[in-house]
């Protein structure tokens, strides 16, 4: 089973990474992006239950005060659907993902003993005028992903 746990800043709290991305996008000469929500994504692959995934999301991956989480569940990644106007960035296969090693350790600390494979990704949800594929690609390659080591996903 594959779980994707998405962590997002709660309404009413500042999302500095999102705000910073807005100004970075303007900095590379792309206009009309008015806001960006930054979402940290953890993909957990392994034999755990939905309840366990909820414990991981609640106790480990999100901050109780400032962050919300949502859990998506897939049998296979082929079932995954991408959001409109969003860019996901993931490490390419074989590139060391250092955070994933820490997450694996920390899940064990919670008392979940199953062997899991974890990947970490970033998702940027964009709002603004005239967002098209060309713009999304330019933002992805010019700012958010280094295609040498990362791949980006857009709808």
């Amino acid at each position, binding site marked *: 089973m594959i779980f994707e746990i998405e962590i997002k800043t709660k309404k009413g709290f500042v999302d500095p*990474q999102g705000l910073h991305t807005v100004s970075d996008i303007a900095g590379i000469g792309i206009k009309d992006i008015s806001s960006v929500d930054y979402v940290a994504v953890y993909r957990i692959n392994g034999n755990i239950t939905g309840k366990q995934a909820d414990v991981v999301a609640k106790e*480990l991956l999100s*901050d109780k*005060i400032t962050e919300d989480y949502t859990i998506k569940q897939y049998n296979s990644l082929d079932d995954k659907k991408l959001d409109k106007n969003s860019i996901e960035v993931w490490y390419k296969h074989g590139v060391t993902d250092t955070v994933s090693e*820490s997450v694996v350790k920390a899940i064990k600390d919670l008392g979940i003993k199953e062997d899991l494979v974890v990947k970490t990704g970033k998702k940027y949800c964009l709002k603004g005028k005239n967002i098209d594929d060309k713009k999304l690609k330019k933002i992805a390659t010019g700012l958010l992903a280094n295609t040498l080591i990362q791949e980006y996903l857009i709808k």
Partner: protein
Amino acid sequence: MAKNFAMVNKMKKIKVIIIRTAGTNCDYELKSAFELCGATVDRVHINELISSKNKILSYDVLAVPGGFSYGDDIASGKILSNEIKYKLGDNVKKFALSGKPIIGICNGFQILVKMGLLPKPENFEQISTLSYNDSNKFECRWVHLKTEKKNNDRTLCLWTRDLPDVISLPVAHGEGKFVADKKILDDIEKNNQVVFRYCDKNGKDTVYPQDPNGSLNAIAGVCNKKGNVFGLMPHPERYIYALQHPSREGYDGVYGWGKKIFQNAIDYLK
């Protein structure tokens, strides 16, 4: 300047434990600070504490130092706070409720807050957090701090007694913005649990960069209601000598105001 290093307290040797793990960075200077105040100090790895769970209770002072425990992966201090809570929680709570001094500095503060030992160790649930700086970047600079003395003109916190109204200390963090619900925040304020606030050199309200992170109510450090558990983002262990201050200010000619904080805990136990 270091001649007082071997200063020995003949009455009682205070034992300090500094918890460390992968990514702990500020343990050596913290050890030096406590030693300068006459304590004996052990830096103990978390693995060792977990394998002999009662070891921690044999100490008089518990210190959680700064650094990047487990790389601060996921969020700063998160993994170590869970590890301590799930594997050592009972004894840490017992330590806190016994009234013995506990300090968490920078990453240590983040850890105490995220496991729920601050601001309310009785409940041991996370009710506040330290979030990303408003500037969205790591900030290393000296700041002014106002010492709150609303408790009959003295501080509630045993660590910060007899400090001047305004002191300066260095900060170095990317996630230091203190955040809590309004109700919790009001509670903390009402109970005089705010120990330090970012301020200007006269103790007045200030803005970025002198307030380095945008904390609610400019909070830089808090304690529990008893005043024995103390957490703060700035680094008092980096200011135990006047020489460490950018313009070499201090007290008694050689010391920095950070030293006074550690001295307070040791003196309290004598």
